[in-house]
């Protein structure tokens, strides 16, 4: 209740103060690309897009993408655990959110959870968020929305950068970048290291989930100790004006350390989790007279997921194999859980046909390969999809934009699937009205199609994939109103997103399972993936930003959400009308920043950030508590010696030391460990061509025009 009131107060105050704003400091200067796959100024983009800018990222000083999105927008929720970030965007989970890095989908998941550790926060130029379905443009997974991480492109010349960030709970992040230019060839190397000791908010286990036992000194952590390394290399070559060829490579390793306590039922784990990823890509881009753009990209990605065993006495696992039903692993042993490999070819052309039409046409090919020795039929499986899509951005009137798109996907298993979208925008002076309808879809995953898992727990349980699954499909409608003058903008969006044919494991009569499997396993019960569930999310998102003076910015967001589903209930084996786990009705964020240059060699930035969430609802194991968190961060741009700049960032997160101490395995509103401190130093040496910042506004910084 209190949180709700506070949120509203904050909003009312902001709007009232904003109404008095007069000076001209543009709040919407950015160019965005995600909504239509073409460049638009943020205030002219036909589909509502939220942006987190580089300046905002620096001012916030976020440790990870989770912290950044959770702190700077109202629509995201995270509950980090071993399996991933458990990201939610307007009520739907990570498997319905498409994450792009420079327009390319992030590869590799663990039960639908992407590993956001793959994204080095220091390399983020800006983050674009387009809520709602975008499958007509991007294909599978874009149901709740798309997050596009735009990375920094090094300027020409020589660049050396070192950033070190330290914080409470053994949090250490290090990034090192080297940029070199040889004529028309550029090289950029980035190394990223991160570690954290993790933390424990409670030693109490939930008795209901460990057979009624009472444990108050469990070693289970709220977030486990972890460590990652990432090395990436990019080479670009400009063979001619307007043309670029690139080749990228990336290597990544992450390990999540799990404690071994003394309670076999609760805190003895026997193995750590590891990820080994690699990526190779190459591409070509051609911009012809600013009117025609052609791109071609080829990429290969690998995401390996392993158990690294840690038990001296041996850790026994079921193999599902009748002749050797058990296997024992010792410290140092490693077992592959899943190896996901993807090959993609993407071709795209954008053409300004006339003053009224801009046409986008593209072709995507995607091949997926999965090896999961313990979880799928035949131990490996493959799948391919090809797609053709077209989009027309049409301006029949000066004030009206209509964007229509259609995508045809052709998949090896489910055949042909059509995805349309239609959106329009009416510009009336400082007001914009946007309406859109779009479909989204999510292809059945290789696991959902080829899963085979046998467990013998007092009777054999057989879990099966299903190759006749259809894609999960959504219909998304939204209405958006925006008012923007140069130094103030407010936007309100109402949406309704309905997802059907959602896939889940459902108990089927054993007689329906393939006869060969019945004979082989004689299962007591069988569960199979089916297109069965439905859900809807509906809500209102409000965002506003006001540059009060050149130095002061206020802003915030509020998100109201209703989410319900007809979800399969394991107990009753029926569809039940249930809450979608993890959803909160009210979420908000506010921020106030002040930047001032004291001398030529010292500029100070101070930011105050707040975020709140009402109770997060769950069907089982309790609701997550409502919370309110505040953060203060400072940035110090310290004098520059010739080509070198220094920036210090320091701050305090969760100022009021709020900690959710709900017993382990029950749901938490937030996993924050309480008050934490952080500080970072970035040293940057750059020699070469830099674009002069032609704008004195200290809130406005473009790409590499800035003096960082």
């Amino acid at each position: 209740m209190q949180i709700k009131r506070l949120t509203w107060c904050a909003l009312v105050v902001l709007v009232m103060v904003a109404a008095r704003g007069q000076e001209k400091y543009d709040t919407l200067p950015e160019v965005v690309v995600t909504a239509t796959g073409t460049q638009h100024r943020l205030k002219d983009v036909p589909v509502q897009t939220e942006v987190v800018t580089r300046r905002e990222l620096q001012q916030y000083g976020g440790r990870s993408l989770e912290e950044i999105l959770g702190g700077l927008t109202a629509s995201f929720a995270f509950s980090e655990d071993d399996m991933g970030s458990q990201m939610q965007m307007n009520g739907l989970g990570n498997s319905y959110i498409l994450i792009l890095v420079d327009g390319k989908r992030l590869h590799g998941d663990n039960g639908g959870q992407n590993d956001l550790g793959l994204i080095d926060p220091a390399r983020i130029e800006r983050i674009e968020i387009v809520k709602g379905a975008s499958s007509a443009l991007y294909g599978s997974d874009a149901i709740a929305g798309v997050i596009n991480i735009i990375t920094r492109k090094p300027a020409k010349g020589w660049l050396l950068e070192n950033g070190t960030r330290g914080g409470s709970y053994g949090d250490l992040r290090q990034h090192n970048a080297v940029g070199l230019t040889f004529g028309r060839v550029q090289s950029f190397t980035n190394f990223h290291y991160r570690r954290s000791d993790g933390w424990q908010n409670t030693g109490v286990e939930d008795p209901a989930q460990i057979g009624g036992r009472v444990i108050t000194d469990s070693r289970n952590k709220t977030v486990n100790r972890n460590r990652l390394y990432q090395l990436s290399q990019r080479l670009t070559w400009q063979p001619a004006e307007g043309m670029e060829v690139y080749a990228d490579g990336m290597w990544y390793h992450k390990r999540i350390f799990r404690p071994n306590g003394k309670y076999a039922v609760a805190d003895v784990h026997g193995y750590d989790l590891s990820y080994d990823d690699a990526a190779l890509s190459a591409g070509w881009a051609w911009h012809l007279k600013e009117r025609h753009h052609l791109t071609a990209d080829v990429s290969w990605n690998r995401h390996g997921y392993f158990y690294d065993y840690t038990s001296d006495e041996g850790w026994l696992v079921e193999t599902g194999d009748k002749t050797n039903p058990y296997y024992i692993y010792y410290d140092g042993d490693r077992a592959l859980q899943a190896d996901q490999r993807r090959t993609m070819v993407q071709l795209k052309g954008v053409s300004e046909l006339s003053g009224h039409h801009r046409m986008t046409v593209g072709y995507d090919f995607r091949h997926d390969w999965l090896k999961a020795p313990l979880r799928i039929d035949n131990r490996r499986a493959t799948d391919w999809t090809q797609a053709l899509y077209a989009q027309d951005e049409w301006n029949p009137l000066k004030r009206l934009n209509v964007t229509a798109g259609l995508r045809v996907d052709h998949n090896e298993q489910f055949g042909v699937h059509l995805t349309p979208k239609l959106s329009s925008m009416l510009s009336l002076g400082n007001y914009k009205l946007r309406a859109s309808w779009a479909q989204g879809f999510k292809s059945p995953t290789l696991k959902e199609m080829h899963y085979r898992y046998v467990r013998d727990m007092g009777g054999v349980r057989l879990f099966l994939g299903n190759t006749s699954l259809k894609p999960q499909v959504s219909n998304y409608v939204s209405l958006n109103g925006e008012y923007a003058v140069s130094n103030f903008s407010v936007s309100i969006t109402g949406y309704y997103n309905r997802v059907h044919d959602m896939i889940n494991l459902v108990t089927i009569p054993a007689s329906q399972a393939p006869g060969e499997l019945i004979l082989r396993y004689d299962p007591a019960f069988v569960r199979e993936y089916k297109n069965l569930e439905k859900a809807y999310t509906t809500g209102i998102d409000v965002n506003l930003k006001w540059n009060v003076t050149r130095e002061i910015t206020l802003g915030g967001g509020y998100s109201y959400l209703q989410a319900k589903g007809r979800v399969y209930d394991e107990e009753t084996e029926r569809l039940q009308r249930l809450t979608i786990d993890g959803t909160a009705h009210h979420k908000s964020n506010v921020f106030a920043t002040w930047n001032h240059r004291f001398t030529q060699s010292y500029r100070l930035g101070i930011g105050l950030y707040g975020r709140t969430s009402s109770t997060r609802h769950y069907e089982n194991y309790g609701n997550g508590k409502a919370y309110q968190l505040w953060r203060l961060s400072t940035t110090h741009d310290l004098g520059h010696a010739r080509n070198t700049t220094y920036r210090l960032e320091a701050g305090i997160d969760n100022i009021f030391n709020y900690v959710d101490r709900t017993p382990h395995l029950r749901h938490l509103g937030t996993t924050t460990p309480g008050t934490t401190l952080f500080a970072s130093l970035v040293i940057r040496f750059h020699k070469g061509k830099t674009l002069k910042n032609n704008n004195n506004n200290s809130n406005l910084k473009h790409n590499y025009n800035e003096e960082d």
Partner: protein
Amino acid sequence: MKKIKILMVAMMAMVMSASFVACSDDDDSQSENFTKYLSQVESQVKSKKASSGNKKALLLVAFGSTWENAHNTFKGIVADYEKDAAFKDYDVYFSFTSAICINKSRAGEHYASQDFYAPNFWLEAIGRQKYEEVRVQSLHVIPGEEFLRLRDNYIKDFKNNIYGDLDETYLESGVKVFVGGPLMAEEEDVEAVAKAINSNFSKYVQGDNVMAFLGHGNPEGYNYGNGNVRYTQLETALQKINKNYFVATVDMEGNLLDDLYGRMKDQSVKAGTTVTLHALMCIAGDHAHNDMSGIENEGDSWREFFQGEGFKCAYDGNDANTANNCILKGLGDYANFRAIWKKHTVEAAEMFAEEE
């Protein structure tokens, strides 16, 4: 496909034999059960051999248990052998010698029904599949009654073709039989076991704290191989390391609970001292649950005895509770004891070897 075919045949065989049982008279049920169990074991051996292509079989033999944690220990031992590179050429099988444990496990005492079979079924099936080497490993602790029964009855019966349907030439010259002794087969093993115990449990004997191990032992009149002596030897070896270790049994005359208590008093272990109890058996089964920790509270367990004498020796049936002083684990749960058994398997003596 081949594997599936074999499995199908095996299943059919099982279904058919099961239906024979269903329509048989009570008088015949004993022999029908024999046929059924043999066919079940044979189908497992057949399919395992077909999938591995191994020519050597390793049969692990334990006394048995009906407790879930004990069964998990056994699974761990089997998996440990299967994983070990030293046994990669072997198909590993597992057997109980105790008919009571086999029957009660099948009936689902304590938890879900499990099928175990006596060594004669396995040896017969192994012989029918004509493995060229059979290595039998005892998972017993002392060379006592159970080990001797295995060596002198089951293995000899196999070699002597007790059911008369194994190929005589095969038995004569086609198969080599080895037998690996129990944990403390030889006196020199006692030293190794004492070291392993101290490396795992030294924290329980710090200061005045006492740790006592509960072995089984052979009752008076059955101490054929003089296996019982190992318990005494082990206590001596342990007390050389730390005088607070004790070893006693539930069946060995002269080394029962009273005798243990007497020795503790001789060493002036005082009331109020913490006594940690651990089974000196491959698994923590019936004796660990009842004689040692006494979860059914019948008053005759070691734990209740020590508590009655004023020692600190708690157990509330919740293995997660660290305030407890009874450790419900078997020796087979620890890698270092398993290593001793595995060493015996590697160094097993060949039986029936022709004298030179």
